[in-house]
Structure formats: C-alpha cells, structure tokens
C-alpha cells in the first residue's frame, strides 16, 4: 500500500494561479506587470508541481484535507496527489507556461480587448484544472469540475459578439446541463451505495457495494455522460461551439485542460469509483467501449469534412478523447496505461496544432484549410510544427503519439477485443487522412494568384512561434524519453 505524506503543497499549487487572478486585475494598467504576474504564477505553479514529483515517483501519495467532513455527514474537501493526478498536473502546468507566452503574443498581435479579464480567468481556470487533478474524492472533483466550467465561460465568450454568445450558450448548456443532470445524481447515488465514502484512496469506492448490472450500467453512463467534458457522443457538440474562443483558450483549454479534465474524470470513475474488478464482473464497460468507438470513427469522418481549421481540430480532439475513454474501458492494464499516456501525448500534439492555427490567424488572418495553399513557404516554422503535431496525433514515429497508441492497441489485444483494435487502426488512418492534406496543401500547392506578392518568410510574432516550436519539440522528445510518463502510469496500474 502506498504510504501517505501530508503536505499542503497541492493546495498551494492550486492556489498559485488563483491568487494571481486578483493581482492581474490589480495590475490592469501596467501591462508588463500584469504579464509578469502571469508568468511568475505559471513558473511557481510548475515549480510546486515539480516539487511534489519526487515524492510521487518514490511511490508515495500526498494528501491534504482542506475542509473536514464531520461524522459522515458530507465528504471532506480533500486533495490527494497520485501518479495519474501528477501526470495530468505536470502536463497542464508545464503547458500553461508555454501558453502564457503564446497568449501574450496572440492577444497583443490581434489587439484584443479586455485582456486583463482574459488573463485573470485563464489563471482561475488553471487552478480549477489542478484542483481536479489533485482531487482526493469525488466531491472535490465535482467541485473543481464545475468551477472549471464556469471559469472558462468568460474565456469562450471573450469576443462578446453574437457568435460568441451562441457558442457560450451551447458550452454552458452542455457542460452544466450534463454535470447537474447526470453527474450530480450519480455522485449522490454513489455516496448512498457506498455508505458515505467518496474517497479515491484505497479500494475503489463501489468495490464492495451491492450493485446490479442494470444499476451499474445506468450509473456508469450517468458518470460518463455527466462528465461531458470528455466529449463522448452525443454530448460532444459543445467543443466545436467553444472554438469561437481566442486560440490560446482553444489551445490550452480545449486541447488540454478542459477536455482532459473530462477524460481524467472518466478514468477516475473507471479506476477509483467502480474499480476494474467490479466492472469486469458487471460486464458493462463494453457499452462504453462501443460508444467511444462510435465517437472515434464518426468524429474522424466529420473532421474530414470541416474546412475551418479550428473546427477540424476540434473534431479531431473529440475523436482522440474517445481513444482515451475507449482505452480505459478495455479494462486491461496496458490499455489503461496507454490511456493515461495519451493524455500527455495528445496534449502536446494537439496544443501544437492549435498554436499553429492561431499563429496562422495572427499572421495572415486565415481560418480555413482551403486558404492555406503555399503557406509552407511563408511560415515554415509554423507549418513544420504543424506537421509534427499532426504526426504525433496520428501516431507516426518519431513522435510521442505512437507510444500511447501502441499501448492502447496492445491493451486491446490483451483484452481480446479485436474489433475495437480495428477501430484504433482505422481511425489512425482516418487521422492521417484529415491532417496530411493540410500539410500537403501548405507545402506543395502553390499559393493562390492574388497573394503571390508575399516573398520570403512572414512568420507570426516570436511570442507565437516560440511556444509552438517548444511544444513540437516536446512531442518528439516524449517519443525518445517517455520514462517519466511510463513510471507515473505504472504507479497507477501497478497499484491495481
């Protein structure tokens, strides 16, 4: 059993960005100070997460109780850092640094309004994300999950125009609707069934509960659809809607933080709420598998038909998220490991792609795939990074995406689910089909007549290009040095 370390580090890691929000508001006139605050907070946060890393890798767990629960009346609000949480926190906090840099370039480049509000809510969103990562029980998880939905709303609707209004409406309708309508009752039902235990520590919450297959299925579905940030069909359409947001938001939140929070919650539900053993006994996980498989295929097909680059990426994200859900629902150790790794791999790949999309928009104002012809010549760094990101998401070596997909496929084989294995393979092909035309068009098609005047390299601002290069390099590095990730995921699957 893992030994427990009590430390307030998780709280401070969480608070680092939350406390930065008022400071950002305070410095709203001093642009330099404001952005410096963002950076300092990002680095502090990352540092705090890193500080916890040695403890976690040594096989221990950090716990911290924020609010006590009294005599079984209600669950306490409690932080608990384990391998999975650590992995997610590392990804989120490291990418925040990069995104901050990118956001400054992007927002300044486009002279966006209300930048202060933007940065403040961005910081709050990160706090909520880390809160989810470090949540020690379902109640805390739910609390930060809701906080994240609400804190990102102003970011999604940042443009405050009609489109943003509609997008924001869809966003909240789906996220709040499902979390209140499905997740909350599921949560309370779990609380009753388990006799007042919601903690992730020790055995799975429902491991010893008396639960029939029908109840189990309903509960599982309620959780999976309730955490609709995971984007499983039919509750996926908030994500394309959210693409009205400025690109840094789409990049960090809708490729990393928000959506990954969704799948993170689903993984928690599978591993810590039900437990693999119980699910295997009930045999209900296949239903989820097939829903996820359906989502994977259908979203890839839809992605192919999208001309708006960000929307194409969004549908790709939906598919990739369901990879993770599918992996964890296979209930084999390797697949679960693959799912967890895919959180990180996909994060690096997809954020690169979004950064690229944003950089293209900043530099040229182009939003559509069909406009990208010949762009490889004027924006070689951006498009190069785009190619790497696309490779990673598709799973082509030498990028990190290959590793996680490998584990997923391995897991499917372990579980003897060859039909689902085929789904993985087919969808990888589809990924290629919708990404590589973009790369091809950029590098090998001549620019349209009217724009031929542009000569030489016309990249986006350095603050935009630098981050996307970093994340692209990161994707490649993850292929060569996946040790830490493997270690963290093993901590989780080994514990089962």
């Amino acid at each position, binding site marked *: 059993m893992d030994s427990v370390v009590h430390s307030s580090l998780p709280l401070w890691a969480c608070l680092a960005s939350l406390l930065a929000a008022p400071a950002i508001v305070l410095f709203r006139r001093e642009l330099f100070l404001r952005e410096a605050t963002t950076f300092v907070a990002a680095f502090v946060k990352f540092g705090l997460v890193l500080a916890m890393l040695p403890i976690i890798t040594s096989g221990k767990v950090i716990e911290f109780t924020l*609010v006590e629960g*009294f005599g079984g009346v209600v669950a306490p609000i409690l932080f608990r850092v384990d391998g999975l949480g650590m992995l997610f926190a590392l990804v989120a906090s490291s990418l925040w640094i990069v995104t901050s840099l990118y956001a400054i370039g992007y927002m300044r480049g486009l002279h966006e309004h209300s930048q202060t509000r933007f940065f403040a809510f961005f910081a709050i969103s990160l706090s909520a994300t880390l809160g989810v990562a470090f949540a020690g029980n379902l109640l805390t998880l739910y609390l930060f999950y809701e906080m994240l939905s609400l804190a990102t709303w102003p970011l999604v*609707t940042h443009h405050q125009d009609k489109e943003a209004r509609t997008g924001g409406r869809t966003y909240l309708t789906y996220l709040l609707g499902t979390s209140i309508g499905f997740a909350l009752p599921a949560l309370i039902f779990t609380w009753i069934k388990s006799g007042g235990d919601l903690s992730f520590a020790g055995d799975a919450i429902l491991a010893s509960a008396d639960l029939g297959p029908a109840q189990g299925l309903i509960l599982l579905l309620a959780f999976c659809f309730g955490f609709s940030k995971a984007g499983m069909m039919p509750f996926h359409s908030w994500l394309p809607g959210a693409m009205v947001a400025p690109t840094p938001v789409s990049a960090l939140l809708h490729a990393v933080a928000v959506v990954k929070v969704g799948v993170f919650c689903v993984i928690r539900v599978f591993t810590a709420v039900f437990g693999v053993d119980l699910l295997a006994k009930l045999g209900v996980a296949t239903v989820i598998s097939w829903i996820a498989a359906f989502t994977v295929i259908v979203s890839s097909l839809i992605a192919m038909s999208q001309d708006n680059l960000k929307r194409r990426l969004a549908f790709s994200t939906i598919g990739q998220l369901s990879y993770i859900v599918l992996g964890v629902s296979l209930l084999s150790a390797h697949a679960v490991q693959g799912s967890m790794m895919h959180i990180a791999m996909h994060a690096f790949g997809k954020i690169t792609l979004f950064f690229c999309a944003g950089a293209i928009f900043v530099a040229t104002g182009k939003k559509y795939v069909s406009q990208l012809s010949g762009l490889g010549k004027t924006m070689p760094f951006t498009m190069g990074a785009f190619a790497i990101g696309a490779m990673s998401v598709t799973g082509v070596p030498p990028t990190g995406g290959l590793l996680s997909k490998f584990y997923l496929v391995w897991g499917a084989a372990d579980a003897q689910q060859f039909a689902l294995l085929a789904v993985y393979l087919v969808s990888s092909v589809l990924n290629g089909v919708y990404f590589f035309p973009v790369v091809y068009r950029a590098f090998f098609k001549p620019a349209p007549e009217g724009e031929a005047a542009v000569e030489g390299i016309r990249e986006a601002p350095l603050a935009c290009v630098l981050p996307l290069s970093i994340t692209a390099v990161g994707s490649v590095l993850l292929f060569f040095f996946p040790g830490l990730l493997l270690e963290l995921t093993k901590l989780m699957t080994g514990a089962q």
Partner: protein
Amino acid sequence: MSEQLPAIILLAPLFGALLTGLAGNRDHRRCFPILISALAVSFGCAIALLVQVSQSGPIDYFVGGWNTERVPLGVGIQLRIDALNALLLVVITTVALLTAVYSFRRAGEENTEKTPQFYMLFQMLCVGLLGITVTADAFNLFVLVEVSSLTSYALVAMGSKSRGTVAAFNYLIMGTVGASFYLLGVGYLYMQTGTLNMAAIHEILADPAFGKSSTVFVAFILILVGVWIKMAFFPLYGWLPNAYSYCPSTTSCLLAPLMTKVSVYVMIRVMLSIFGADWVFQSLGWSHTVVWLAVIAILAGSVLALAQVELKKMLCYLIVAEVGYMVGGAWLANHWGMVGAIYHILADAFMTLCLFIAANIFIKHCRADRIDQLEGLFKRMPLTSTGFVVGALAMIGVPPTAGFFSKWYLLRGGIESGQWGYVIALLVSSLVNAVLFFRIIEIAYFGKNPAESHDHAHDEDSHQGQAGEATLLGGEGRPATVIPLLITAAIVILLGVFNAPVVEIIQQALEGMPVVGAAAAAR
C-alpha cells in the same frame, strides 16, 4: 442574564420599534442607529443561544414563571429553543441586520416622510418572525404570525407603486385566510387535547387512539393548508409574486428571504413537534401525494420564472420553486430529506437575500426592471455583479455554494426514499435556473444588443461621464448597499464550505424530534 436570552431576543427589536416611535419622529436620523443597535442585540442573543443550545441542549423558558411543580404544562406560555430554531434565529437576525444596513438612506429615500414608521414596521416584523420561531405555544404562534403579517402588508403597501397596493390587498386577503385556517386548526386540536402547548399536544397525540380521529385529521389539514398559503406553496402562491416585486426595495429584501422560510419552519415544527413524525408519516401516509405536489410546485415555479421579463418577478417565481424544494424535502419522510429541507431554509434565505439586494441595486442603477435592460452592468458594477453571480450560482447549485449542498442533501433524501419524481424535478429546476441566470449574466456581461444600442446610448454616456473607467468601482452603488451584498455572498459560500458543522447542528435538532419515528423504526 443568559437564561433570559429567549425573551430579550424579541424585546430588543420591540423596544427598538417603540423608541423609534418616540424619538424618531422628531429627527429621522435617530431611527437608523436605534434599528441597528436593536438588531445587533438580537443578533448577539441569537449567536449566544445557538452556542448555548449546541452545547447543552434545548432551552425551555416559561414566560411569567408558570413552571412550578403544581402548575401543569401549558398553563403559561412556553418558549422553547432547540437547535433548529436557534439556527433559524441566527438566520433571521443576520438577514434583518444586513437588510438594515442596506436600508441606510435607501429607506429614507423610499419613504421620505414615513421613515420612522418604516423602521418601526421593520422592527415589529422582526419581532413577529423571531417570536414565531421561539414559541412553543400553538396559539401564541398565531398571534405572532399576525404581528409579522400585518407589518408585512403595510410594508408592501407603503411603496409608491400602485400595483403594490393591489398586491398588498390580495396578500392581506390570502394571508388572513391562511392565518385563520391555522387558527381553526389549532382550535380543532385544542378541542381534542385541551391544551395549546406543543409538547403537551404532542404527548397526547402520541396515543394511537388519535391515529384515526377525524378531528385531528382535519386539524392537521387546516394547519397545513394555512401554512401553505403563508409560504406560497404551489397552487396557493398567487399573492406572492406581485407582493414581493412591487414593494419598496428594502421591503423586498426583508420579506423575500424571511417570510416563506419562517412559514416552512412552522410547517416542520407542526409536523415534528406537534403531530410527530409517527402520526404525520405513518397514520396519515400522505407523503407521496405531498411530494408530488412539491414536484409540481418546483416545475411550475421554474417554468413561470422562465416566462418572466422582469427581474424581481422572476426571482419571486423562483421563491415559489424553492418552497417546493423545502416542502418536498420535509415530506420525503426520511432523515436526509428533512436535513436537506432545514439546511435549505438557511441556504435559501441567504441566496434569496443576495439576489434581491443585487437585483435592487441593478434596478435602481438602470431605473428599469426588465431583464433585457440590464446590459453591460458587469463592466460598470463589478462588485455588485460578483454578488449577483454568487447568488445565481447558489441557486443553480454549483459547488461550493450553499445551494449545492442543500441540493445534495435533498437529492440524497429523494434517492433514499425512492421519490424519483422529486429527484428529477430538482435537477430540472437546477437546469432551468442555470438557463435563467445565464440569460441574465449573458445580457449583463455582453453589454447591449447591437440592434437596440441606440436606445440606451445616452444612458451609457451619462455613466461614462460620471465615472468612466477611471476607477474600478466607479459605477457601483453606495457602500451601504454593496457591503451587505458582499457579506451575504460570502455567507452563501461559507455556509456551503462549512456545511458539515451546520448539518451537525441540524441533526442534533432532529434527535429531539426524529423524522423516522418510533413506530416506523419498529416495523
């Protein structure tokens, strides 16, 4: 002196009212300090009582000292403070105090020449509500209900809006019917038991012979219907929306959080302390029917709220829905449902207060009360908006606000008792609340609709002229209105985060009057 607290808590505002009458007429500026100090004394008493009760159990206080050995229970009037009403006392005094701060200068503007009278009615209303809460005598409760009702009719009718007067008349008619039904019910009980003391009645009714008595049955229905009218439970809610939305702003801040909640308290008190859970849930066996009524109330309240274009009206219909929550929770006939209902009394009082204060500041600021006229307020009034958003989130039930945890307990009760209709209604109403409030937040956040911007251009300019963006709080209301709002918002959150100790106290209260009675436990 500490054993006299149950009397002093009421006497402070009573003397406050009298002093206001004697001293305030000459100089209106004297009213406010008197009000604040009277309510502060009450508040202190309430806190002291809560501490005392949670440490050493219920307090019995016999007015007139009629509790010697040879005097049977019920000869004099008894006040009884257990954990339940101690909590409620704290809520009432806190809400009253916050509203009092809010009323600073506002009341003077709204009732120029009648400020002392306004404050007298204000304090007498508090006397009534506190009295309802502390008493353990069924008839005394009626008298105090009348004190609070009569003052609230007047407070509603005082406004300058003529529709408010009409609403006050309806309120008066309905209120009188409600109170009379209650009185009649008490009469029926008195006829069967020969006493008016709640504990004594309870003791007599515990005899199973009364399980079938049609008099007791009718008494219960009369009291229940009477209290339902007072709390605006669904089919009987007609008086509430107009009365609360066309009255002066301070009045609405005081009445909306307190009146219905206190009525719910009375219902719970009647159910548990007079009739007893055994009788109500076992002999009567109506809990399914009432929970379904509550479901209808919740859904109807939510749907009607959706149909409103005026902000305060919408909030009023939400109160109707919230009453459904509490009635339903109380009638789930299990422990957690009751805990949820009681916790929701506390939570809803502060949520409603928060929303009403914010709404009143908005309305004053925009000089308009329609939802679509609230454009761009967030930029101009960030603090008020924060308060409003906190209240809205609590209404929706977002953690960690108090609204989430009350829903948590209510849902738990609903699931445990298998009342799925109620569970679904709660969730649907949460979603409707989400739609409602985000519609407002959207309007207030996005600023004006491009289509109709020219209508309000001058409005915008005038504010820019006044404050511009130079100061953060340029467009805010007065500190006296914003500070209570922020305190309330903080309470809403703190009550949520620290719900466990509160629930502990509620459970302590329910130990004295179990929801699942002895008969049910024995089965």
